[in-house]
Each structure stands twice: as C-alpha cells, then as structure tokens.
C-alpha cells in the first residue's frame, strides 16, 4: 500500500560492453564505373583498394578476434570478396607455399602479396585483390550492358545480414563464417535488391553468445543521387536496430544526401574526401573510431545533413510532393494512372482533382495581380 502514496523509481543503467569485445568491420566498395572514371585524375580504384587493405589490416591488428568483410558493389551485382564461401582459407593458411593440391585457380597464379606478410593480413589481402581483379574483368568485359544502376542498397543489405549472423551466431564454431556467408550470398547476390534487409531482424537475439561490435564502411565515388530509396532506408532502420554504425567515405564531387542520412541515423561518420591522395590517413584516423566510444567524442562527420526524401517515381529529391496515405510512398507528381506506384492503392479522384487543379491565384482580380506581379 505504500505504493499508493509514494513511488520512487530508481533507474539503473546497465554498464556497456567491455572494451575487449571483438569488432567486425565490413567494407563496401562501390565500383560504379562512371564515378571512378570521373575522378581518374585524383586517384584510381586500385590505389584506393590498397589503402582500404591497410585500413583493414590495421583493424585486424587491434584485436586478435577482430573480423573483416569486404563487399564489392558493381553495376551488375554485389558480392562478397572476403570472406568467400568457395575458398577454404584454412588451406591457404596451411599450404603457404602453394605446394600443390591447387584445384583452386587462385593458387596457380603467383600470389599478389608478399608471402612474408603476416598471415592473417595476407589471407584477407590476397583474397580481396584477386577477387577485385575478377570484378574489374567483369566490368571491362560487360561494360556494354551496364545500365549504371546502383547496387549499393543490395550490398548494404548483404553487409547487414552478414553482420547480423556474426552478432548472433556462436563464434567458436569454425564453420560459422562459411555458413553465414553461404546463406547471405545466396539470398542477396543475384538480385542485389534490398529485400534481404527485412530478414535481418528476425533472428532471435537471445542466442547471441559473443558481444561483438560492428560497423560498416561504404566507399563510393558515385555522384548520382539515384540510390534506391526504400531499400536504403530499410537498411538504415535495420542498422539502427542492430546498433551498427554506417560510415561513409564519399569521393567525387557531390554529397550524397541518402548516404548522409544513413550515417546520421546510425551514429556513423560521413566524410566527403575531397582529395583522395592521402586517404590512408583519413581512413586510419576519421574512420577508425570504434562505435562504442562515438557517443563520447567529437566526430569528424559532416553534420549538415540534407533530409530530403526521394521521389519514388522519378528518383529525384523532392521539395514539395505527395505522400500515399497507405504506404507512405513519396511522389513529386501524381501518377497519371491515379494509383500509388508502390502499393497500387487507388487515389480518390476528387482529391486528385483538388490537388492537381493548381493554385488559384487569380479569379476575379486578375488584372490587379498582373500589374503587381510584373512590377516587382
């Protein structure tokens, strides 16, 4: 009965995870040809990839159980370069001097990185470089069919699903990486669409055994704002739920407002790299901050975020537009069909008529306004 007259809430905040937790870093490299071609005077994609390797090696060296993943987003598809389920890394690790066996095509060619390199670095670097070469070949050969659609949203979804797997599965099982990658790649690789993002929240967090920290770094030179808005937004929300930060290293000339939003909403860092020649410095300083300490320090992030939404019909940013009351689809103009382009709901004709009748600026006093408008 004391509760009737008095109630005291004592809030106890649970202490955060310890600092020794392993951390997963997923790098997404947007290999959209036009963007990179346009900044060819400043840097090349291979230069940048090397800097990224340095960055990943640095991450691995911080903690023995730190993890990395590398996803390439090409105009055709998104795919994991590392870890790759088709490669048995243990084999590479043990048979260091490509002695024989080698049913694998990768081992026939001479290795791209020095054999003297620290083994954990070498495994990652070798895999990424080889796979990147394959990616470049694919782009170079298939350049005619490229429609320049961005698959970044798909890559982001893949990164999130992989992160989710790594966060919830038992790390001690050695096959985890392979099994996680198998399921995620089979889900996301072909289509590269954002549908996978919705699955990421379904697994039960209670079976989480390790408390891993995670973040995603997107490196892109794409100046087009034509990102798939819904999948990217879904990914952002999923990342928020998973407490995964999305960092953006934006090269090229324009800011990308959707990626800005992604970083802003997930406590990530958005940094427009104007001059990529010294990017290794940027990567190892600005992008090296663990998500767990981000709330406490001043981040090198560009906080001027453009929160504009994208029109679902034209793919362009909207200043003033229409919103479907059923699915919240955003339109800069009412589709001629009178239906929502996303959910097919039929809009009320009367309301359409009212909305599209245009401003009534002059009915009776037409001439007066005319003189006013012209005078000023």
């Amino acid at each position, binding site marked *: 009965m004391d509760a009737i007259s008095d109630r005291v809430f004592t809030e106890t905040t649970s202490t955060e995870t310890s600092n020794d937790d392993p951390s997963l870093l997923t790098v997404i490299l947007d290999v959209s040809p*036009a963007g990179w071609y346009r900044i060819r005077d400043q840097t090349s994609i291979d230069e940048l990839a090397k800097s990224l390797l340095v960055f990943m090696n640095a991450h691995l060296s911080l903690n023995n159980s730190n993890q990395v993943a590398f996803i390439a987003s090409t105009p055709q598809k998104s795919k994991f370069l590392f870890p790759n389920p088709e490669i048995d890394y243990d084999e590479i690790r043990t048979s260091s001097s490509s002695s024989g066996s080698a049913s694998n095509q990768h081992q026939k060619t001479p290795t791209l990185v020095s054999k003297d390199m620290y083994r954990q670095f070498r495994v990652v670097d070798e895999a990424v470089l080889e796979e*990147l070469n394959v990616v470049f070949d694919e782009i170079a050969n298939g350049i005619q069919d490229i429609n320049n*659609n961005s698959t970044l949203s798909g890559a982001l979804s893949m990164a999130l699903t992989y992160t989710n797997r790594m966060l919830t599965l038992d790390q001690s099982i050695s096959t985890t990486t392979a099994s996680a990658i198998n399921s995620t790649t089979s889900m996301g690789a072909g289509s590269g669409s954002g549908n996978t993002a919705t699955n990421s929240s379904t697994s039960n967090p209670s079976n989480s055994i390790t408390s891993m920290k995670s973040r995603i770094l997107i490196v892109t030179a794409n100046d087009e704002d034509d990102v798939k808005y819904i999948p990217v937004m879904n990914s952002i929300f999923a990342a928020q739920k998973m407490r995964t930060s999305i960092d953006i290293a934006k090269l090229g000339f324009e800011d990308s407002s959707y990626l800005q939003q992604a970083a802003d909403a997930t406590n990530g860092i958005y940094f427009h*790299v104007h001059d990529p*020649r010294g990017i290794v410095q940027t990567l190892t300083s600005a992008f090296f901050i663990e998500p767990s300490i981000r709330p406490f320090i001043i981040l090198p992030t560009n*906080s001027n975020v453009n929160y504009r939404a994208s029109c679902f019909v034209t793919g362009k940013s909207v200043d003033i537009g229409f919103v479907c009351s059923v*699915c919240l689809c955003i339109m800069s103009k009412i589709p001629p069909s009178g239906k929502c382009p996303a*959910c097919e709901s039929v809009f009320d004709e009367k309301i359409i008529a009212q909305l599209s009748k245009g401003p*009534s600026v002059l009915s009776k006093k037409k001439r007066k306004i005319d003189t006013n408008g012209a005078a000023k």
Partner: protein
Amino acid sequence: MRLRLLYKNDGEDEKSLLLNFSNRPTMNNIKDALQTIVARSRTVIKDTPTPATTVSDGNETTPGAITPTSTPTPSSVGASSSASTNGAGSLSFNTPESLSDASLLRNFQLQQQYLKEDRNLRSIFTSSVIDNKLTPQLFWSTRLNQLRTYALTISQHRGPYNVLSTIKPVATSDNQVNVNVTRDTINEIFDTYPIIRRAFTELVPSKFSEGEFWSRFFNSKLFRRLRGDKINNSTNRGDVILDKYLYIDQTQKANEDKESATTSLDQTSKEPQSEQTSTAPSLQNPQIKVNKFLDLLGNEEDNSQKLGNRPDLTMRFEDDGIKKVNLGQENEMIVLMKNMNKLSSKMVEMSNAISTTQQSLTQPDEPDSLSQAEINEYQEELNLHDLNEVEESEFIRLSINSNLDAKSSLRRGSEAQMNHFTPDELSSFFSSNKFKPLVNLSDTYDSKNADIEKSSNEVTSLIKHNFRTFKLTTKDSHGVSYDDVKNLVDESLVQEIIRYNMTVVEFLSHFWKLFLNGNNPTQLKRLFASLKNCRNDLTALKERATKKFDEMELVKNNEKLREKIIRSLQSCLEPMEVSLDMACNEYVAAVRLAQKQQPQETESVEINDNGKRPLQQ
C-alpha cells in the same frame, strides 16, 4: 541501565543528564516517550505563500472560521476559478458549439489569454500580426487545435485527490523535519478527511495550539494511516491523543459517515454559486439506494462462508456488532483497503457534488431505474474480457512494388551521364586498374607526406568545426562561460534574426497552405505582398549588419575575419532568402501561367463575377 540525555538551551552549552533505571520496560517506555517528544518538537510546519493566517503563528483561529470562508487566493485565480465561478462569459466551454472552429476564431478573450500565457506564441504573434499585418484570423486559423486544447485546459479544474499523500515531510540538515502546508491544503485536508476536522474541532482551542496540533498530527499514526501508509503497531511511534481517532474512525463509522455527508453538504452549500436547494439528495449517504449490481452487502445473501471454503479476506462478511471487540486487531490490509475505498468514494462524491450543482435539477435521481445504457455499462464491467476468445486481427495485404525504379521509364537521367565516356574508355580504364604482383601496400603512404598532411588537416578542421558547434549547442545547458571568446555579434542582431526567422516561417506556412490548397486569391495576394516585404527587409537587415561589422575595429583590420563573419551571416540568412524567393517565384509563375490560360475571353467571366462583388477601384 542508564539513559543519557543531551540538551541545550538557546545560547548555552550542551548539558547532559543521566537517568538510572532499575527495570528495562520502564526505561524503554521513557525512552520512547522522549523520542516522540523530540521528534514532535523537530517538526516544523511551514506555511507557504498564502499570506493571511498561518498555522504556526499562534493566531488561534477556530476551525469554523478557517474552512468555508476562505476564498481562493489570487495565485489560484486564473484558470480554474474563473472558469468554474464565472460560469458564463467567453471562457466557459460547456457546449460543443463553443469549441467549434468559428467560435474559437471569434473568441478574442480566449486568444488574448492564450497569448498572455504562451510567450513563444506571443512573440510570433507580435512579429507577424502586429508588425507585419498578418490578419489575426489567418494567424489563428492554422492554430485552431492549439486554441481548442487551451480552451479545454483552462475550462478544467483540479478534482479532489488524496491530499495527505502529497505532503512529504522533509528532513533538513539541522535535524528538523519540515512540513509545507498552505491554508488551501489544510482546507482540502478537512474536506477530504472529516475525521481530521473533527479532531481539530475537538482539540484545538481546548487542548493544543493550532501549531502543536499539526506537528502532533504529522507524527501520528493517524496521518500515516490516512495517507495510505502501512502502520506497524508495535514499533512506530505515534501520538497518544491523535491516534485515538484511528479507532474512533472505525467504531463510529456510521455516525461519521453521516457527519461527513453533512459536512460536505455544508461545504458545497457555502460555495459561492451553489444554492441550498442544489445539493442533490444523493449526497445524504444513508438515503442512497445502492443498486444491487454494485451493492457489496449483497454478498451476505451469497455468503460462501456457509459453504465451506473460506473466502478471500476482502470478501468476508463480518457482523459489526460481534467483531467490535477486536478493534485495532483487524487485518491491517483490510483497514487500509477500507480507508482507500472510503477516500475514493469521498472523492467521487465531491466531484459528483460539483457536477450535479452545475447540472440542472430537472432530472430526478432514481438509482434503481437504470437506463439501458447503464445496464450495458454494468454488464460490460462484469464481463471478464480476458477469458473471451481473442479475435484474429485482420491484415490487408499490401503489394509493395519495390522494383519500380528499375522499370520506370522516367529514370533515365543517368544515361546522359554515361554518354560522357565511351564504353571502351571505361573498359580499358578498368583493365588498367588490375593488380599485378607484387602489390606493395606501402605505396599508400610512401613519399606521400604532403597528401597525408592535407588529409589530416581536413579531418582536424572538421573536428574543430564540430567541436565549436558542440560548444555552442551545449552552452546554455551547461552554463559554460565564453568570456575568453569575444563575441563580435551583437545580441540584438541575433535576436533580430531569430525574430525574422519566426515571422518568415509563419508567413510561408500560411502562404503555402493557401497557395497549394486554398481558394482565396485575395488573401493569397496579400500574403505575397507580405512575403515581398519580408524579402526586402531581409536584404536591408543584411546590409545593415554587414555595415555594422565593417565599422568594427577588429573586423576592419582583419580581412580573413571579415570574410568569415560575412559568410556566417550569409549562412544564417540564406535559408530564409531561398525559401522566400522560392515562394515568390512560384507565385509569380503561377500568376503568369494563369493569365496565359485565361485569355481575353475571361473578361466576360469577370464581369459576371463583378456583378456579385464589385471590383476594387
């Protein structure tokens, strides 16, 4: 066995006293008594703001004088009293019509009072309506919801509540216990707990002073019991005299109920507006006919005790006559529940009294003839909903077409960009990027010192910038002083920009609302003119500020600083400029378009229109 006492008279040194005892019970008794006295003397009753009479000032007012004659003090006027006592006037909202859009717009008294209370709104109102000639009608038209909320807020008043539970004795550093009570609170206590009024009447002039009564009261078990605290008979100290009322309360329940009914009748009758006749018969407790639906006495007829299983303690029927012997040993829980129930019904009764006095007396109160709605309501209450089957929730399937961007023919903007380079160029570009053995990662930093420094500076300057923003935004909340940073910008200029911003936003929101949906060209035209004015004022403001900066000694001699300040000013004003220009341009464009679409022939239409409403000359 000894007891040592330390005491101190004003201005004297501490003295001690040693008492010897030969038996422990006696010593404990004495000790308890002493502790009670000490605790009592340490309780200080503080009478907050109310000026008139205070409890502790020794001004022995009789309770009769205290209770009903006290009028609301000025502080509590405002909302509640004006709403409830005025009854009439534009600030009462008893009818649905008084809350309609039109009547809210017409209710100037309400608007005025709202503006008086909301400082933010007032400054928007001043700058947009008074300074810039926005019509008040338009101003309020977008704020009808706020206005309605405010109207409802002020037309409500506080209902009865458990007064004692809000009183919290506070221990101070010098070991005193402070209790804050106002005269109003005391009146409320008397109204809610007639037993206290009774104790006060019986004891105060004759036995204690008023102050002593209250300090005893706040140390008594009676206080804790009425508050709803659990009292433990053995350990807690109480007050011998006042705690008697604990039992009086129980034994004379019936009498007391009668008394309480009459006191509440007294009290309501003394309220300025209620007439003697207005006290509804339902207030006479004994006469209330309780509907069988709700009557707990009905449990007697359905006494499960006779059937074997002992019922829950709250459900046991006890004959008062037999059980009276064990008074004080009744289950603590039951006592508390009864107290709480009594309090609750008291509150319901009090608020009923208020509402019934406000209602007309034409409806005779016949508790037993329930309306269909009431029967339904009671039945609904008896229904155990959680035992019912849960209805399956139905979903409507939405077929979201997330691939629409791939198909859309409108999205071919990127092709133009692709044409800047031939596919061959791209193809060879990517081939040339391929890695050849051995890749040396030290390429990324070897002999790149200048580049690396540049990148480093880029990162650092961004951090610095963010830090400044952080300092600015946290300045107010943390009270960090900025004396070290000389503030070049006049506070008045900052205020002016803020005020401009509010005005511009206000006008723009009205403009877009009318422009996109409205059908009021005249009003729109007026808004357009206001926007134009705002735009000109803004330009003037900018020039004025720039000139002012240029005159500053510090700025004049420092080209870099000047540039920085001008840039900051620009970034402050830019959003306003852009949005104003956008609105003006849209308007002008729409006018032009409309003119093209309605060529000369509209002249005839115009004449028709003019027939109804003459053209301004």
